[in-house]
């Protein structure tokens, strides 16, 4: 009995809690991608680097506030810097739309042209971020580190295993829930939100109804700025900020959006968790877990690990390919790619 409890605590500590946090971060990123696909009708390959840019601005302002001695007690100071990051990202995205994407909209370019243009924006952001903050790891988390420590739980429960929940993980989940609820309220209950859904559904009819395409485009980019900056900051607080890592996040984020159904925000959230749980569960060494569950002589020799943790991204990639092959419209039947 105690073994089963230990097994559960072990899984919670190394799989469930990290997967829920990682899933929330991917979900926020994927919603940003899916909004651009559904409303602006192209795959935005710059999304990872948009997250990096937003997080970079947040980091710079966090360092500034830290030097002024501003802090939020147990919560990270980055939360105060967040609005500045969002503002800077929104300005950049609106600018990139005005100087790059608008040109192609006027020429009625095909979607793949926008995709390539977004790759160009990706390289520009890549360069800007590395130029300003450098390519190395940056740590900017402060405040309390843990909500619950594994050691404390072990003592309290008297078990061999415990679960630690970091402040950044709890913050990720709470923030993600707030952002998602706010987004769905906006899309379903406000006039502007409904007009964006209409624009995504049937662009010609939306134009005939008098919906302004410029306003829809601007609001979309502002939403992307908000989502990307928050997702990037939460990821950076939880793990660390390194520009290259954010570029690599593009793969699991796209996998999440596609698995859930492109253009469908609910799907993006579900997809985020599917990808996060898959990545972690497939690369987790189950040796200790199995040891708790099975009788003594059956204890495993090897690590019982399906794939090494280095192959985490391979898991997203395989899921992405499988979904595209067998059910391209994703779980929630979004637009096909």
């Amino acid at each position, binding site marked *: 009995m105690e073994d089963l409890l230990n097994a559960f605590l072990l899984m919670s500590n190394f799989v469930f809690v990290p997967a829920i946090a990682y899933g929330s971060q991917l979900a926020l990123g994927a919603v940003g991608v899916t909004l651009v696909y559904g409303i602006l009708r192209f795959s935005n390959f710059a999304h990872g680097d948009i997250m990096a840019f937003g997080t970079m601005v947040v980091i710079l302002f966090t360092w500034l506030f830290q030097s002024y001695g501003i802090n939020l007690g147990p919560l990270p100071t980055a939360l105060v810097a967040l609005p500045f990051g969002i503002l800077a990202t929104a300005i950049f995205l609106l600018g990139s739309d005005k100087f790059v994407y608008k040109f192609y909209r006027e020429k009625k370019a095909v979607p793949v042209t926008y995709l390539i243009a977004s790759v160009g924006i990706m390289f520009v952001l890549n360069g800007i971020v590395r130029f300003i903050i450098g390519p190395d790891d940056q740590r900017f988390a402060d405040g309390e580190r843990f909500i619950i420590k594994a050691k404390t739980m072990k003592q309290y429960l008297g078990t061999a295993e415990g679960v630690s929940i970091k402040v950044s993980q709890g913050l990720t989940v709470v923030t993600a829930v707030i952002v998602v609820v706010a987004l769905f309220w906006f899309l379903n209950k406000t006039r502007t939100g409904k*007009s964006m859904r209409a624009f995504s559904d049937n662009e010609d*009819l939306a134009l005939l109804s008098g919906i302004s395409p410029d306003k829809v485009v601007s609001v979309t980019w502002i939403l992307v700025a908000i989502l990307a900056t928050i997702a990037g900051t939460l990821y950076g607080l939880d793990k660390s900020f390194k520009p290259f890592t954010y570029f690599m996040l593009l793969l699991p984020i796209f996998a999440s959006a596609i698995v859930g159904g492109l253009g469908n925000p609910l799907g993006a959230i579900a997809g985020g968790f599917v990808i996060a749980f898959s990545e972690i569960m497939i690369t987790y060494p189950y040796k200790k877990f199995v040891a708790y569950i099975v009788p003594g002589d059956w204890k495993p020799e090897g690590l019982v690990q399906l794939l090494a943790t280095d192959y985490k991204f391979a898991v997203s990639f395989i899921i992405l390919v499988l979904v595209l092959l067998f059910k391209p419209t994703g779980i929630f039947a979004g637009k096909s790619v």
Partner: protein
Amino acid sequence: MSYLIGENMTGGYGAADILHGCNIVAERGEIAVIVGPNGAGKSTAMKAIFGMLNIHTGSIILDGEDITSLSPQARVAKGMAFVPQTANVFPSMSVEENLEMGAFLRRDDISKTMDEVFDLFPILKDKRSQNAGELSGGQRQQVAVGRALMTQPKVLMLDEPTAGVSPIVMDELFDNIIEVAKTGITILMVEQNARQALNIADKGYVMVQGRNKFTDTGEVLLNNPEVRKSFLGG
């Protein structure tokens, strides 16, 4: 002066002209129907009146005002409403949301207009929370027309409204169109079901190859032997 005038319209989608000096006129509260064989330019003529097509010769005049240079959105603001033949609803949005989107340009209280639409199409009231994409073809057409009516237009243009609907629903739809015209809205309609359409028309335009061939009241055209022979089927 007539309420809606499409005068000497000549133009096309690209290099070749489809319309050649086409004339369409409708009075207030009148039902004007454009019929003709396939490829005659009926839908093209209506799109030209709405501004979805650029005509290099001719003009469109609404209530005495020349609106030839206005974009379709601007013409909607002037009181025109257009119901396309296909893709005429927002499929992933509910019936009620579709109607709300129809009234997007209005800033006042739209609930009274929505009630009027529900009176006209009672079945939409039952299905108000259902997604428009899940409705049957006939019901979708009703949503499409309802959406157009939400702006309280002066002119309602319908592109083949009975395409793909069953005969009973077609009758109901024509009855509804007559109801709408009674409220003073000018109806301009392109139709393939020429006989039934001319039956309810105050004025009929038979177009062939981008030109007006016959213009008269619906009743006269129905009894015209040449019209009957060429494409009413005798």
